[in-house]
């Protein structure tokens, strides 16, 4: 399995090992396609996003692996009562990875979290759906192969 898939799998496992304030089961997908009725259930999807490799010596590289975690749920009203718990959940998810290594893939060290968008305005307007995207970046040092 490719390193980025191992990291994505470790992110999924970390999300599923201890419950959050709103229960969910994270899934890892290559091609996440949903239909609006699916979103009645809270969906947390882990998707590999990209890799940046930088040479740091003749034989070693620093690799930054970006993993997207999408948090999505159909809501009944655009009220603070309904949306605040979801933004709190996103923060909980972010906090779970901050300054930590992934237990299932300890070579990967967290370096950065981006939360953009915090919520997608167009999804709230057009689908009455909360969508937030976290992008985690993990650093792995690798020795040149082959």
């Amino acid at each position: 399995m490719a390193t980025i898939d191992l990291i994505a799998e470790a992110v999924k496992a970390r999300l599923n090992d201890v419950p959050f304030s709103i229960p969910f089961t994270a899934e890892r997908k290559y091609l996440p396609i949903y239909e609006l009725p699916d979103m009645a259930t809270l969906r947390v999807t882990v998707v590999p996003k990209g890799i940046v490799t930088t040479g740091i010596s003749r034989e070693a590289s620093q690799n930054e692996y970006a993993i997207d975690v999408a948090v999505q749920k159909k809501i009944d009203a655009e009220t603070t009562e309904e949306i605040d718990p979801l933004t709190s959940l996103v923060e909980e998810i972010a906090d779970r990875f901050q300054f930590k290594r992934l237990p299932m893939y300890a070579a990967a060290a967290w370096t950065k979290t981006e939360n953009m968008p915090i919520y997608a305005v167009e999804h709230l307007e057009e689908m009455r759906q909360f969508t937030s995207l976290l992008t985690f970046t993990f650093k792995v040092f690798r020795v040149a192969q082959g």
Partner: protein
Amino acid sequence: MASYCKTRAGLDAIALGILERTESRDYLILTADLVLDGLPTLPNRGDRVRETVGANIFIYEVMAPGGRPHYRYSDPYRKTLRIHTKHVATETS
């Protein structure tokens, strides 16, 4: 008496690789027919239309398509409403 005039499937992609499919449907209804609790009314975001087909009930929710209002009048005299909805659930009766 309502009728639906257009159904379209859409694929809404957000810039993160998550794709979402929606089924949009516009309903045409006489403005005078939209009466709730004895009072003439206008559609609100989140209102739901339940459409029974055989044993299934298809539920459509009033939503704005792409930055536009969630309903509009479809004639100059405001006699007919065009209400924009999306399919959000299916129940079995």
